């Protein structure tokens, strides 16, 4: 860059503060990264990734890249991670990773390869003489945004233009991939009605839990004949109950027993009241 500012030093933080910040952020980012490869649920993994991305954003800000710090928060944490969460929502409960190894000893060898890779990179970079930061120029001063804009629209203007084509292609590609062609004609109202009559279930499916004492979505509905129906509960909720070790069926049995007890008590009371009236 042509205009070099007179101020020396990296960022305008005190060295001791920047050191403390660095260690806090480094420990946070690395532990969240390790958590990412250990947790089972995809949602937890996404939250760990958010922690890593936000701490990296602060690291960018500390290294004199305020523009990149904001882009990191807005584009990565705001857009990319939300996209991940949307897909986790759409793909749903099967997104928990299975713990079964399909290749024998894969975890062990992957861990060993990771350690070897880390040693290779750290030794390699440790041997390279990385000095202290260059004195402050427009790169790491308040002039960051102007300098970046200058560079993007002069030296890197062609890659920048190519990026726009890439983004449009990506948007079109996502639309094409997400589009589903209708292979059969849309059923008319008459066909829908006929199919309903033929299926034997004209009324809507019974809603969950409203006939039992429990009024909850994971409670199966009790039919007029006293039996329960599994069709009233969403399979996703059944899977959640199984994972949490809950047993809605036991609750239903308890409800039935409570109903019988209340019924017999009412009969006794009615009998007693009848006697009282007799006297």
């Amino acid at each position, binding site marked *: 860059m042509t205009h070099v500012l007179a101020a020396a030093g990296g960022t305008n933080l005190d060295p001791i503060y*920047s*050191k403390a910040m*660095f260690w806090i952020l*480094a420990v946070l980012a*690395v532990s969240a*990264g390790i958590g*990412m*490869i250990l947790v089972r649920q*995809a949602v937890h993994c996404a939250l760990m*990734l958010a922690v*890593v991305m936000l701490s*990296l954003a602060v*690291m*960018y800000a500390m*290294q004199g*890249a305020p523009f990149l710090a904001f*882009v*990191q928060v807005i584009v*990565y944490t705001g857009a*990319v991670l939300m*996209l*991940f969460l949307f*897909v*986790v929502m*759409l*793909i749903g409960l*099967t*997104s928990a*990773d*299975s713990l079964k190894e*399909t290749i024998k000893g894969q*975890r062990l060898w992957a*861990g060993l*390869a*990771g350690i070897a*890779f880390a040693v290779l*990179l*750290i030794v390699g*970079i440790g041997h390279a003489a*990385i*000095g*202290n*930061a*260059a*004195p402050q*120029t427009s*790169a790491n001063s308040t002039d*960051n945004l102007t*300098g*970046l804009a200058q*560079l993007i629209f002069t030296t890197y203007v062609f890659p920048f233009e190519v*990026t726009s084509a*890439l*983004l449009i*292609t*990506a948007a079109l*590609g*996502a639309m094409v*991939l*997400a589009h589903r062609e209708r292979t059969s004609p849309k059923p008319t109202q008459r066909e829908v009605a006929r199919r309903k009559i033929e299926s034997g279930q004209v009324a809507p499916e019974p809603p969950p839990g409203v006939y039992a004492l429990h009024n909850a979505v994971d409670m199966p509905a009790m039919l007029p004949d006293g039996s329960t129906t599994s069709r009233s509960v969403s399979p996703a909720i059944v899977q959640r109950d199984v994972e949490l070790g809950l047993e809605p069926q036991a609750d239903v049995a308890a409800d039935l027993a409570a109903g019988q007890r209340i019924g017999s008590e009412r009969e006794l009371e009615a009998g007693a009241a009848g006697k009282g009236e007799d006297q």
Partner: protein
Amino acid sequence: MSPAAYVFVAVILFVIGAVGVLVRRNAILIFMSVELMLNACNLAFVSFARLHGNLDGQVVAFFVMVVAAAEVVVGLAILMAIYRARKSASVDDANLLKN
């Protein structure tokens, strides 16, 4: 802190991402690990930009972010299409080309 410390953090994050890609079976989680690796690269680029006192590294990190956003959009759309067809997001189940 000297830029070298940041580069070492970037190295560790990159290795964690690589191990995640190797270990995970679910395509979404593999994607998240790839994102972690891209973020680690960005951190290294920004650190080297500070080391050299110019802005080229930051511009490259900016382009990496743009490409990563495009990659995530297309990758997740492919993932959705596979899930729709095979009712599974596991990379072990997508074996139509086998045999």
